């Protein structure tokens, strides 16, 4: 309750948080388009390149009037962006090289100028180093008002140009051929990017500002394939991280805001990367794991069935040792577990003392897998002219993935030539 009381009592944290939230939302929205332009790294370079501008602004004026600092930052950021394009299109250097050249040169100059101002002895320079990692607590009412106005302007522009931005990020060439002013639109998008970085440097800092552009979009990409929804999710990620980041930074002394926000954003992005139901890495691994288990089980049933064919007796009893000789690559423990689940799902009878035999449905299943195997072999030999001695291995893996629809199609293709189709049908 103490914390809640603290928030309500302190008006400052409310308006600062509001500023951060708008800033985070606007930069993540415009950053989403930048990500599809494949310019994520360029955003980072632009942000770093703003440091010398900030310092020069201070050196010229001698105090920390935000208008001059921000203008300086905007100008050097802009020059850096032009330079990146110029170098990559007029020399043999590729875009990533020119990006890292500009990033390091401008940032190096910025650090140099920062040292100079710190040694200049004026009392005013204190706090200039906050531009590296950001200090939301240093925002004044005026700064927050500026952030709110400019962020709203950025969001409004994106809403107005949504259709156009979508077209130029997907297919610039087509946009040109229908007479769209692609150069102007690209310029507007770049302008909005630089603007959103500029208004963020004071509260988030030049070093981490690009994470505000890209991280929410990268995380949101895992949850949807719809651009509107993706941008909406990205904005929500950004707002959430903004609120918590600003709060943590404000309540803990000496804690810079930028890293706080970025930590929250990264947690969200990482969470998306792991747990997204569509493309999340855990989902992918889980799929692979269950597929492996299924294949092992199907192969065991097929083995039982084949032994049945060889002995002309589908009730033939097989011991663990026999099975193991055929599945030597599976550990005893795992093999035992697979056999247990097969018993549980009613494909095998357990006869005690490590001996099993097929049930009626186990027989059907075994016959079905063998049928798919033979169908695929027949298809390969007939339509792909692959030698019969080479088709077995291929069919070993394909037999597990053929769907009933593909099965029907294969039967209609190779049905007549299919040697034992009657035999398998009889046993199904």
């Amino acid at each position, binding site marked *: 309750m103490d914390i809640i009381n603290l928030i309500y009592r302190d008006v400052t944290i409310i308006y600062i948080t509001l500023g951060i939230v708008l800033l985070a939302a606007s930069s993540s929205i415009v950053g989403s388009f930048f990500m599809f332009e494949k310019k994520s790294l360029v955003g980072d370079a632009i942000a770093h390149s703003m440091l010398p501008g900030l310092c020069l602004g201070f050196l010229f004026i001698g105090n920390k009037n935000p208008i001059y600092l921000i203008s300086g930052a905007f100008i050097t950021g802009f020059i850096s962006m032009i330079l990146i394009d110029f170098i990559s299109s007029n020399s043999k250097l590729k875009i990533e090289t020119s990006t890292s050249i500009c990033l390091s040169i401008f940032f190096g100059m910025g650090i140099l100028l920062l040292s100079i101002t710190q040694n200049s002895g004026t009392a005013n320079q204190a706090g200039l180093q906050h531009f590296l990692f950001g200090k939301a607590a240093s925002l004044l009412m005026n700064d927050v008002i500026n952030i709110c106005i400019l962020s709203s302007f950025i969001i409004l522009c994106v809403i107005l*140009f949504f*259709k156009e931005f979508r077209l130029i990020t*997907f297919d610039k060439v087509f946009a040109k051929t229908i007479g*769209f002013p692609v150069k102007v639109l690209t310029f507007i998008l770049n302008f909005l990017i630089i603007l959103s970085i500029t208004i963020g440097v004071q509260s988030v800092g030049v070093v981490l500002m690009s994470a505000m552009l890209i991280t929410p979009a990268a995380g949101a990409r895992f949850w949807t394939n719809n*651009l509107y929804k993706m941008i909406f999710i990205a904005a929500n990620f950004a707002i959430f991280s903004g609120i918590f980041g600003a709060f943590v930074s404000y309540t803990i002394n000496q804690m810079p805001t930028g890293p706080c926000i970025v930590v929250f954003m990264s947690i969200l992005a990482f969470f998306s990367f792991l747990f997204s139901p569509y493309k999340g890495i855990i989902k992918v691994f889980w799929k692979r794991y269950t597929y492996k288990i299924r294949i092992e089980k199907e192969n065991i049933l097929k083995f039982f069935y084949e032994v049945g064919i060889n002995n002309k007796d589908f009730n033939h009893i097989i011991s663990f040792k026999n099975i193991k000789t055929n599945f030597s690559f599976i550990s005893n423990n795992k093999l035992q577990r697979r056999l247990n689940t097969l018993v549980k799902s009613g494909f095998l009878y357990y006869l005690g003392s490590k001996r099993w035999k097929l049930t009626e449905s186990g027989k059907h299943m075994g016959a079905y897998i063998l049928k798919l195997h033979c169908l695929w072999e027949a298809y390969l030999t007939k339509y792909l002219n692959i030698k019969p001695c080479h088709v077995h291995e291929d069919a070993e893996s394909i037999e597990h993935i053929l769907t009933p629809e593909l099965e029907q199609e294969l039967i209609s293709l190779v049905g007549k030539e299919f040697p034992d189709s009657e035999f398998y049908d009889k046993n199904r």
Partner: protein
Amino acid sequence: MIKLSSDPSIEIHDMTVSYNRKPVLWGVDISLPKNQIISIVGPNGAGKSTLLKSIMGLIEIDSGYIKIFDKSLNEIRHKVSYVPQRESVDWDFPASVYDIVMMGRYQYMGLFRRASKKDKEIVLDSMEKLSIASLKNRQISQLSGGQQQRVFLARALAQQADIYFMDEPFSAIDISTENAIIELFKEMVKLNKTIIVVHHDIYSVKNYFDWTVMLNMRIIASGPTNQVLNAENFKETYGSHLNILTEVSNIVKKERIPIREKKLYKKKK
């Protein structure tokens, strides 16, 4: 043999084009007829795509001029449609089939405006014609190569142009789809459309196209397909006795010499 058309859809006069500073098309001088299905064939690196891109104003030409329906491109842009190569875009972009086909209507919508009822009808109709209406809400990242190609063609159809330039529209599609698309082209020609296609499969040219342009850094032949497609032209297009042209091109690129001298002075102005 370069046959000129008396009532041309497109007329290219003495055009030379460089791509990445390397001259790839020399003195292109052709005129193509209206209301026909026309193919541009030639080996890899012959400049087929470059020819289309120069016509669409995507590459600056070094000399000459291009007229479409006797006008410059900018005057009749809305009558001209261009289908880029399928690989030219990132199909992982988050958009549905409908979103992409709707892009064909953007030129009529103008800035800031949204799709009207008529736009939506045309988009649905275009998807219908390429039998991708059932994929309307499918994400483009989940499409097969042939379906992606049909999405691009539907987008072009939605533009309702009079002349269509298509860069390899038959790559990555199966033969039955290819036939269906050719049938569609024939329907379009009946509605007074002109279709110009960069084509890679020399064997199907005879069956599909009324007029054929054979190209290998320069125009080797242009005329009705049955008159143009002969052993001599074939040998000249695909044979390798163009070494001098290629070597000169390489020198021009290496030494950074503009292919037309007046370009040296333009920059100084």
